[in-house]
């Protein structure tokens, strides 16, 4: 490639400011996969990691967490899964080890304990300030992921002070929770798994459910991700979707990393009380929406449509019982619960995560604080993102989606750097 002009400054030579072509922020699977792609294209880069590789998996998730996708789906660029449990599901600590192993396998240039304080445009690139000094670069890849900060709805502010509130970032195990009934909020994989886990630990649990995605673990003997990938649903691009805003906000499908289905009915049968969306707080009363039957019906219908799409594939002829989706039937849900000593003592918010770009001092956010981007190409020259929900495709938040996304984004980066170098060269020769 054409060497950029900025490399006239040798790294570290100028008052501790180092120059480099590309800075990747975050050494998770996305950032490391991008490092592998850039290395393959001989693009000079460094990966800045706030702590240690895989730390979010180790320290910011609950003890029992396993990946929702089977091991055979894990194929980071340069490292296919080659363990002996391809149909198994990695425990979170194994995921952390796997990512560390990957960093070694691709010799990623990771700078640990380099927390980024601020990124701002400067000249033809960006200045990146970290706890380990300052960098200048021409392109920045935001690989800090979509799961940095827990999302808690605003009505949390109205909850009485004697009710303990905890998010899934800080929840570790049921035995840590204060005594009394637990209200788990969120109909995602996380919400259902934790409601079940806390209920299994002998605690009374209410699970509040809004819009959700019902998903069987297996269809006709194969894992549902085999079907999602083979049918193309998993690889469907943002542009092909009817409602991209909805797709980006959807909770994770109701699955667990293991055998057997995880449904509202299955957790209800174990004793979890299912209620509608947490809609309001009046004094000490939590109010739940009465729209649960419709949301269950919608989820049933969407699952039927998904199975029909699987069935439209060549050489596939699903028969009952694989196509038969029993309608979700739940006990009549109540609309209120008492907060505090009367009933609910703890609220566990399983209401999702959002990225944190507080340190990103670039004018590229929409009015709701989201990053403006098209398929990871951010609406600011030389700025890129990875790992956001349905960023390029449905696969974008999955380890299995990293290879495709990083390849596409890295090719854009290469084009951008070459083009910029060419423009600078032309400008300089014009002056000369």
């Amino acid at each position, binding site marked *: 490639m054409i060497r950029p002009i900025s490399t006239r400054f040798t790294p570290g030579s100028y008052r501790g400011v180092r120059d480099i072509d590309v800075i990747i922020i975050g050494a998770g699977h996305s950032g490391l996969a991008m490092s592998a792609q850039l290395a393959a294209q001989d693009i000079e880069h460094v990966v800045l990691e706030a702590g240690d590789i895989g730390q979010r998996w180790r320290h910011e998730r609950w003890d029992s967490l396993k990946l929702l996708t089977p091991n055979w789906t894990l194929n980071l660029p340069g490292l296919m899964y080659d363990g002996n449990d391809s149909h198994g599901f990695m425990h979170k600590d194994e995921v952390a080890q796997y990512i560390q192993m990957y960093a070694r396998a691709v010799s990623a240039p990771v700078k640990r304990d380099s927390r980024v304080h601020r990124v701002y445009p400067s000249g033809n690139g960006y200045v990146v300030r970290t706890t380990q000094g300052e960098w200048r670069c021409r392109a920045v890849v935001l690989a800090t992921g979509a799961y940095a900060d827990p999302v808690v709805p605003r009505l949390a502010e109205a909850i009485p002070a004697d009710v303990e509130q905890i998010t899934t970032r800080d929840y570790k195990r049921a035995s840590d929770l204060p005594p009394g009934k637990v209200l788990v909020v969120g109909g995602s994989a996380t919400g259902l798994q934790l409601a079940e886990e806390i209920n299994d630990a002998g605690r009374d649990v209410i699970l509040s459910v809004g819009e959700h995605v019902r998903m069987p673990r297996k269809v006709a003997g194969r894992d549902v991700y085999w079907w999602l990938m083979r049918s193309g649903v998993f690889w469907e691009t943002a542009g092909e979707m009817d409602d991209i805003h909805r797709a980006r906000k959807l909770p994770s499908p109701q699955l667990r990393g293991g055998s057997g289905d995880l449904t509202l009915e299955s957790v209800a049968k174990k004793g979890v009380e299912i209620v509608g969306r947490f809609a309001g707080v*009046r004094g000490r009363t939590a109010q739940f929406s009465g*729209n649960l039957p*419709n949301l269950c019906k919608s989820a049933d219908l969407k699952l039927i449509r998904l199975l029909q799409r699987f069935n439209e594939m060549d050489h596939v002829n699903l028969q009952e019982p694989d196509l038969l989706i029993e309608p979700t039937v739940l006990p009549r849900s109540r609309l209120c619960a008492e907060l505090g000593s009367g009933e609910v003592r703890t609220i566990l918010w399983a209401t999702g995560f959002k990225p944190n770009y507080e340190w990103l001092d670039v004018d590229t956010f929409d009015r709701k604080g989201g990053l403006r981007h098209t398929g990871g190409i951010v609406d600011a020259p030389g700025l890129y993102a990875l790992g956001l929900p349905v960023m390029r495709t449905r696969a974008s938040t999955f380890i299995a989606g990293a290879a495709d996304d990083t390849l596409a984004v890295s090719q854009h980066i290469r084009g951008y750097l070459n083009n910029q170098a060419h423009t600078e060269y032309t400008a300089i020769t014009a002056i000369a």
Partner: protein
Amino acid sequence: MQNNAAQQNQTVDNGVNVEALLGAREALTEAPEAAQFTWRASSRWIHGTHTQVGVHSFHGLGEEQRHKTEFKFDSDHPEVFAAEDIGPTPVEYVMVGLAGCLTAGVASVAQNRGIQLNKVTATLEGQMDLQGILGIDSDVRNGFNDVRVTFDIDADATQEEIEALVAQSQKRSAVFDVITNPTQVTVEVN
């Protein structure tokens, strides 16, 4: 995705101008302040439990708006409540609103999905325990304890497509939301 939408859109006519609605959606995404609407009604007590309510003006798209004419509604109670039964009860107006809202939603979603509707009827039932409003039992709420809507829809679509229309209509319905979710209500006296 919407299987028959592409082929049938030209021939399907439910009398809903979907292009205008989609255009409005796009325009209001760009100008969220124009999406702020205020709906109004004004009432006048007549006699007994009879009240007359008028609906004429509203605010939206950044300016004052008006219905083509002023609509008048009489609300009263039936004779079994020793009233004159000049109009439906207020709670029946709630069902009027729900039926109108869900059915309009079904028509709009069907148009957008390229589904021709032939006939759409709905019956609504709201269960209520009068021990609430009469103050007999403080554990009984005043309002409906159950609302049931049953649609009968004849359309050029499969049963599942029809069910999906009704489900989507509920997701986008203002009155369904008003009934199923809590709302801040402030009542003042001048």
